[in-house]
């Protein structure tokens, strides 16, 4: 069984989910994809918006979307390299 997710794992899951959806996702979809509660999701969204990793935009029908920004892409690339390093060295 996989261990408990760290904060970085959760952020990676969130940003990865947005990226997989072409860089834009609805908050509800993100909640399910990242396997988070509504309260936790909002906490993380605020933090990631403050860190300029994601942004919030409004769609044509007035729906809110979450988009991934350059810093978010950088985080994902950095995180994947770190994971590869940990896996390669067996950590």
């Amino acid at each position, binding site marked *: 069984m996989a261990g408990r997710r*760290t904060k*970085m794992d959760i952020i990676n899951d969130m940003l990865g989910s947005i990226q997989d959806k072409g860089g834009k996702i609805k908050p509800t979809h993100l909640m399910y994809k990242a396997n988070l509660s509504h309260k936790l999701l909002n906490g993380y969204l605020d933090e990631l918006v403050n860190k300029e990793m994601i942004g919030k935009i409004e769609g044509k029908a007035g729906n809110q979307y979450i988009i991934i920004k350059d810093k978010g892409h950088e985080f994902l690339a950095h995180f994947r390299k*770190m994971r*590869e*390093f*940990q896996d*390669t*060295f*067996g*950590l």
Partner: protein
Amino acid sequence: MIQIRFSPQWFFGYDAAIDIISIIVVGLIAWYAFKIFKFSDRKKDKYFALSWLSIALAFLAKIAMNLVIYYPKANEVAYAGVNVVVQYTGQSRMLYVFGFAFYRFLFLMGLLGIYYLVTKEQNRYNILMTILLAIMIILFSGSQYFVFHLFAAIILAGTVYNYLWHYRKNKNVVRQNVGWGFAGLLASQVLFVLTAVHDVFYVAGQVVQLVGFLFLSFTFYTIVFKK
């Protein structure tokens, strides 16, 4: 009288250059592991970084001690043989004894740290027992040089086995390369033990050690710097 110089005279300086390259490779791995720790806040990453840092410091200590041996102050040294057997007295002897003990301690602690992290050993008594064994070898062994390299080889054999066994299961080529890098270090330790037979084994050990670290640096490069 203790034999403390194992390198042939023509190799002086080259071995220091190899050790400096080793420090750079080991230092880079320690730096990146520490960067990961700052990011992940995982103890494993911290200990991994500290293990590599310990090895880097060990090489630094070794270079410093080799400088003392290769360029001794004439008034503190009484030569008992030509080039090979040197009797150190006074401050030089103290520096030699503590300097090399420090080098061996740091090197073995680094190797043990990596071994325990890779094998995911969590039994604190086992870990403490091997650390104490390493300290006893460093302090009380009659032929410290050979026992030290043998002990290092045994730890490295465990590490290599773990990496290559993992490759058999998962076919992760990059991880296999790490295994080959450690295999190079293992072979170098065995060659250092054979220095008792001929000093050419010291040269061979240093060269093989360099190959081992180059393998590790190549793996590090492919993960961290290659897009």
